[in-house]
């Protein structure tokens, strides 16, 4: 940085990503509040700690190997080329520490890390009240630091083989985060099984009412808020696209993750319009139920996200509404047909909504360039194959296999007696004893 203009550009970019990280932290706060609101009183502490402890586990594993995967795996490897040189992103790279020669890598790493937390936290919600914390943390490291970042290298990188060969376009991660996390959660839940009492012997489902519906709505509001940071973090704020690929003369613009031009202004409109479409349809289809109205507002954003860099706001709103409707219907159809206990609707709101949004985008964006660095264009089949890879190949399959292994070792599900008594029963007992001792001391003082 030897002149003020380049310094301003670099330090603005550094600060830009730093702010997105702080905002995205709210997503995790929201998930924690939400899960505690959904879980029953006897499971609150363990539910909270399970979701909290994914933070350090995913953070350190993402530092150890996740970040390197993103830069090393765009070609597969061996689908469209070999391993890329990513020595700057290894856990022993000098660039991965305070370093005067690089101002961006660390904040960019953190932005991606927060996506990793989100992916793992989505799985956390679906598995509450019956998964062992130890098993969950192994699964969290798998999705947060391996599976999702492989899909990001494949489909969320300008040189990713899915972008170059399939024309895959997923600007704000309908499939890259939400599709894969939903598929992963489904793979775990299928092995884990439903909570005791969720289904009757005749197969009918019981509703396990949330302990505190108002905490859930506050949690989802926080997730909405953090989502602003997520959208901003998916952009490159200033890029000379003109000199790079746009005709040779300098033309600075914001770009999406593929370095295609977009505007922060445009995605702001589309975020709000897709939220509105999801909320409006969610309110109608759920008959004003707060849990589902909020959840389907989120599903609307997630469904439109893959194309929200270029959609017209009306398109974003309509697509969000369609996605919200399909997500709601699909959730209950899957629950009743396959006896899947999706405790917080995470598989539906993230997995189904993201995948349906990708399928729709293939038709709406048909023929649009998928990358500035090649001839690939968006097609319905490219997006459909992409959705399948995200949800099933990189999400469901590794989760199902790992869960089977953990289950075989007796490490996946909590014992039946513990599930019935409640994960927090010993802590509740201890608190009651502490209170009794204090009250006795207070009275005798």
């Amino acid at each position: 940085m030897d002149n003020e203009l380049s310094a301003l550009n670099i330090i603005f970019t550094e600060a830009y990503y730093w702010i997105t990280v702080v905002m995205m932290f709210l997503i995790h706060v929201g998930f924690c509040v939400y899960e505690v609101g959904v879980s029953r009183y006897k499971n609150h502490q363990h539910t909270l700690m399970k979701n909290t402890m994914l933070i350090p586990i995913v953070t350190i594993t993402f530092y150890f190997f996740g970040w390197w995967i993103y830069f090393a795996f765009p070609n597969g490897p061996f689908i469209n080329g070999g391993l890329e040189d990513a020595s700057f992103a290894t856990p022993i790279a000098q660039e991965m520490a305070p370093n005067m020669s690089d101002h961006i890598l660390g904040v960019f790493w953190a932005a991606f890390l927060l996506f990793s937390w989100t992916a793992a936290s989505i799985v956390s919600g679906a598995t509450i009240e019956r998964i062992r914390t130890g098993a969950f943390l192994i699964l969290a490291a798998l999705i947060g630091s391996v599976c999702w970042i492989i899909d990001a290298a494949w489909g969320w990188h300008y040189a990713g083989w899915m972008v170059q060969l399939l024309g895959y376009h997923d600007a704000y991660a309908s499939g890259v985060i939400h599709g894969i996390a939903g598929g992963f959660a489904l793979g775990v839940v299928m092995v884990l099984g439903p909570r005791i009492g969720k289904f009757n012997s005749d197969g009918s489902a019981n509703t396990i009412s949330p302990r505190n519906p108002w905490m859930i709505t506050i949690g989802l509001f926080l997730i909405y808020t953090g989502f602003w940071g997520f959208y901003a973090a998916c952009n490159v704020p200033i890029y000379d696209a003109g000199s790079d690929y746009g005709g040779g003369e300098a033309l600075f613009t914001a770009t999406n993750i593929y370095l295609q031009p977009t505007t922060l202004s445009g995605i702001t409109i589309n975020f709000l319009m897709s939220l509105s479409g999801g909320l409006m349809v969610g309110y109608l289809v759920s008959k004003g139920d707060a849990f589902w109205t909020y959840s389907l507002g989120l599903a609307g954003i997630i469904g439109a996200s893959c194309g929200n860099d270029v959609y017209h706001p009306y398109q974003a709103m309509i697509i969000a509404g369609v996605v919200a409707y399909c997500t709601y219907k699909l959730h209950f159809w899957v629950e009743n047909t396959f006896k899947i206990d999706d405790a917080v609707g995470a598989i539906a709101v993230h997995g189904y909504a993201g995948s349906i949004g990708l399928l729709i985008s293939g038709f709406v964006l048909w023929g649009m360039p998928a990358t500035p660095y090649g001839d690939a264009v968006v097609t319905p089949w490219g997006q459909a194959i992409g959705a399948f890879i995200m949800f099933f190949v990189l999400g469901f399959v590794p989760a199902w296999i790992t869960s089977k292994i953990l289950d075989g070792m007796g490490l996946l599900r909590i014992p039946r007696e513990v599930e019935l008594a409640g994960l927090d029963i010993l802590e509740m007992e201890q608190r009651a004893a502490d209170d009794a001792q204090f009250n006795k001391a207070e009275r005798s003082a």
Partner: protein
Amino acid sequence: MATTTYTNYESLADITILSPFPGSITILFIVCFAFWIVWQVMQINAENRHYDEIKKKGHNASSADKFS
């Protein structure tokens, strides 16, 4: 004695890595990676003990009712 590669800022342009002991990164990585593995094992063992205690005390589905 200095743990950093710089002891002043007279040649700022030559300063890159700021952290102390820059030659020890590989060893630190091994230590931290091993800590992660050991932590996972310790967590699983502690969790097993927790569940064993609940089972040993004979708690059942109505145990939590008196605390809620």
